[in-house]
């Protein structure tokens, strides 16, 4: 054992068993493991999750036991445990109802019953209002409410969603034809095909996928890792969940192709904690495919969708984004060259490898005041009004494009082509494909205040512009909303927007003012 001062509290037998199931049983001679086995810190979050799922919270005994078994200083383990919204360091009932109070669920009239906990977006926007029940015990479980996934609202013109629309069985392994084809082509040819395709990252940043792959493939440092970013947490986004729940084998096959092409020894998929069905289906698909891919599950932190924060989270540290450069293609997970791709990005890959349908389509998550909410797939460049028509949406007041990190558009500003260039020219972003529609009765002020609250809650707290800026932004908006103005609010908001955009470490802080600013500028809300 290293020279650590440990917590005095002992774990209960249940907690010990739950943690042992993750970290292995303790050897009779204590944990006198080989030096090479000592870097097991990456098991911290799985161990803490296991303890909480067993007894409902992370007790001092469980925290101390996890620290001791993984040789992590208790102060650091405490820092990690207190980072995640879904880990509780205080005793709470085994059963907790998390009620979504985010944008789409607010539009659907969400209310938080007594004893329930309010939650940021649960990614169930097409069936709003939604909630998640977590039940700790010997057979822990999480239930998405409503449980039923509605059928896709669109039947024609589909590419990425084709198999789902055709009723593919998410539990029986198909033939991996694209993977076979990739192996015939060889890694270099696969990368060439991806580079020749128009595929840009679908997580929000729109970086060319082929260039990322090539950069990792060329790195001499080994091993290389693939990380599938399935921490989809942008309010209003649920596309990756639908893909993982209903066609998990497509994603697993795509990951296998990416690993093959870029020389990755091992793959990880990091799925947000709020997607229990996706956990089960993806885990099953991984096992059925026999690939070296490991499922990691978050614990309630939007910022962990930022790629470097996601690495920190997997490695057992607080999900605090790293400064870039160096970029993940050089220094990524465990300090090694890493390909990070979003779920939707990856499921494009089998289509590219097999040829065939060459249309560049994109998924859009429609929710809010829409007659047919759900996941839509249209070709890039489709005008936004055509998409809104498909979904039967009449945005009387506004559309939020791109999520909390995106922007509000007035009904007369909607003529935007849904392409990266088109969005850029219109001064907006497609982000993760969020389209939330605000109808006649919608409370826009409430939506803007909620967005400000969301960023304040989700800031990791590392850098000053975001940690304090998101709080000051929310305060200024509340002063405007309540009429208790001091007159400098708009100047303060503009200054905060600039320092958060210019000086924050990561994309969370850099975009924390964009939707708010667009509401003030485009909609005249609180102006």
């Amino acid at each position, binding site marked *: 054992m290293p020279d650590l001062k440990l917590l005095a509290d002992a774990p209960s037998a249940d907690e010990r068993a739950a943690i042992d199931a993750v970290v292995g049983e303790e050897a009779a001679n204590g944990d006198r493991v080989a030096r090479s086995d000592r870097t097991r810190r990456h098991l911290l979050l799985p161990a803490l999750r296991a303890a909480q799922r067993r007894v409902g919270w992370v007790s001092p005994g469980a925290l101390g036991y996890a620290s001791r078994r993984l040789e992590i200083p208790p102060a650091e383990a405490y820092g990690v445990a207190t980072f995640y919204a879904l880990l509780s360091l205080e005793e709470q009932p085994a059963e907790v109802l998390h009620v979504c109070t985010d944008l789409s669920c607010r539009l659907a009239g969400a209310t938080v019953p007594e004893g329930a906990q309010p939650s940021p977006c649960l990614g169930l926007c097409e069936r709003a209002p939604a909630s998640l029940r977590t039940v700790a015990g010997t057979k822990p479980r999480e239930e998405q409410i409503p449980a039923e996934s509605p059928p896709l609202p669109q039947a024609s013109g589909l590419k990425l969603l084709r198999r789902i629309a055709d009723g593919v069985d998410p539990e029986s392994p198909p033939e991996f034809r694209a993977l076979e084809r990739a192996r015939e082509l060889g890694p270099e040819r696969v990368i060439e095909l991806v580079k020749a395709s128009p595929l840009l990252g679908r997580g929000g940043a729109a970086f060319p996928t082929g260039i990322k792959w090539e950069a990792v493939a060329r790195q001499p440092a080994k091993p290389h890792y693939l990380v599938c970013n399935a921490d989809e947490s942008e309010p209003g986004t649920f596309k990756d969940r639908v893909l993982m729940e209903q066609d998990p084998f497509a994603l697993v096959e795509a990951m296998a192709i990416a690993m093959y092409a870029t020389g990755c020894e091992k793959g990880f998929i990091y799925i947000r904690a709020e997607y229990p069905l996706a956990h089960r289906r993806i885990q099953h698909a991984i096992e059925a495919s026999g690939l070296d891919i490991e499922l990691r599950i978050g614990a309630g932190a939007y910022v962990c969708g930022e790629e470097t924060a996601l690495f920190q989270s997997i490695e057992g540290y607080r999900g605090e984004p790293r400064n870039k450069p160096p970029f993940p293609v050089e220094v990524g997970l465990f300090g090694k060259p890493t390909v990070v791709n979003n779920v939707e990005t990856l499921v494009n890959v089998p289509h590219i490898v097999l040829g065939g349908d060459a249309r560049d389509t994109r998924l859009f998550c429609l929710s809010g005041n829409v007659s047919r909410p759900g996941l839509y797939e249209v070709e890039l460049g489709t005008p936004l009004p055509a998409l809104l028509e498909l979904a039967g949406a009449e945005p009387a007041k506004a559309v939020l494009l791109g999520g909390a990190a995106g922007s509000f558009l007035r009904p007369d500003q909607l003529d935007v082509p849904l392409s990266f260039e088109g969005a850029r020219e219109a001064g907006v972003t497609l982000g993760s494909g969020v389209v939330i529609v605000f109808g006649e009765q919608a409370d826009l002020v409430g939506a803007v205040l909620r967005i400000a609250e969301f960023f304040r809650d989700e800031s990791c707290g590392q850098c000053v512009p975001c940690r304090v800026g998101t709080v000051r932004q929310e305060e200024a908006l509340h002063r405007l909303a309540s009429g208790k103005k001091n007159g400098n609010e708009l100047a*303060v908001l503009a200054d905060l927007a600039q320092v958060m955009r210019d000086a924050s470490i990561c994309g969370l802080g850099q975009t924390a003012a964009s939707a708010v600013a667009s509401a003030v500028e485009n909609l005249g809300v609180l102006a």
Partner: protein
Amino acid sequence: MIELTVDGNAVQVEEGATILDACRRAQIDTPTLCYGDTLTPVNVCRVCVVELEGARTLVPSCSRRAEDGMVVHTDSERVRTSRRMVMELLGSSTDLSTAPDALAYIERYDADPARLGAPPAPAPKLDNDLYMRDYSKCILCYKCVEACGVDHQNTFAIAVAGRGIGAHISTELDVPLPESACVYCGNCIAVCPTGALMPTSEFELRQAGEWREEEQTEVDTVCPYCGVGCNLTLHVQDDEIVKVTSPDDHDVTRGNLCIKGRFGFQYVQNK
């Protein structure tokens, strides 16, 4: 050597140097709070940001490696606005009254923290005999955590806990220091830029209104306890030692001491 342009002047620095190193070479006074010469840069305070041509956002000079051909502006409107706002944000959320550098930056960038809010009232924690912690003065620069951890002491008594505006420096489960892994080396005090960490001897004199830094003399000597030979700087007021530090640039200590060197000076002035 790497050559870059800083504020219109060509500057040469060694491979691996940062933009901050280049600024210093060009004698451009660049504000820093979370940066320490003996610590790994964490680039969290963002007061050292500069404008790098071609970059979408400003970049932290303390950790961004200098590259050939970079064109850097350290005093553009964007830079000045961000530095001013960082100081307003800190000044509105932290008691900076014992943070001379931060106060100077507030003045230099014409920051007006009061328009964003009032700082919290002092909340000194005295749970041990040797030093005081007041997290109302903490700007969360991570320096104490680094000094307690792998950069210096490898004790790991403290870490950042919580999230967002609730993030704070904490022992495990917030236990008092005597129940934590703290070994009272005081190396966290040595790196703290705001007076959030302070020897009790200094804190008590300040409380009594008797801390007169301008009258103090500094005497360099060698620690009398063991054979390592750490350099000590004795801070003397009215012929009494009121604080002990060690020079940052000393080969042996790099500003660090142990409990004896930093706190064991009472025997000199036993009454």
